[in-house]
């Protein structure tokens, strides 16, 4: 299973990805503009900032110790290998 998240500007130290049973939990923090900037000097402020937490239910069982997460260019990519039992198995059809 693959989970991709659009998450530009996250502080990598706050990024947290964990799998418990069939739940995937992602959390992190995006640093807002430094407080040292006085409000009269801000022309536009459109980018959201702050903390986030998100949990997703996984439809299939995953091998939690083989989950890989990669954060590059503001995109968080998580790869969760399925458990053997969840992989589709071909069933031979006997024609009589």
């Amino acid at each position, binding site marked *: 299973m693959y989970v*991709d998240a659009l998450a*530009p500007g996250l502080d990598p130290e706050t990024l947290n990805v964990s799998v418990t049973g069939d739940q995937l939990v992602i959390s992190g923090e995006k640093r807002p503009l430094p407080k040292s900037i006085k409000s009269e000097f801000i022309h536009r*402020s459109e*980018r959201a900032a702050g903390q986030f937490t998100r949990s997703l239910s996984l*439809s299939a069982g995953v091998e939690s110790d083989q989950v890989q997460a990669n954060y590059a260019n503001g995109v968080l990519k998580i790869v969760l290998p399925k458990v053997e039992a969840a992989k589709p198995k071909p069933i031979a059809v006997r024609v009589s």
Partner: protein
Amino acid sequence: MAEQTAALTTEKTGTPDKTGGKSLATRDDAVYMAPPVDIFENEESLIVVVDMPGVEKEGVDIRVEDEILTIKGIAKYTQPATVLRQEFSLQNYYRQFQLSDEVDQGKISAESKNGVLTITLPKAEKSKPKQVKVRVG
């Protein structure tokens, strides 16, 4: 800085249509989205911060022409498997801004980190606040 919305022009000219006339292609083939920005300034410069996830350093295109700052980002994304849930579709980014003459256009610099592009536009000398000595006489 005022926002400028100019049509994206490309060098390619349109292919002749059925009536035999040529239509000039003023639209690019790709789809673009306007990225969210934060703009603020300090004494030294104007700073523009742009959220462009999915864009690598090579995909960033910043240019200044006729006092218009154009920010373009080409996003690279390949879908790994069949989609179960889709909340975003990664598109390319494009946005333009009108610069006033208080910006020193030759000294603009940019840095890209974690999908966020930070552009620093230093103010021209004449626009920086200068201390005026008051002579008491």
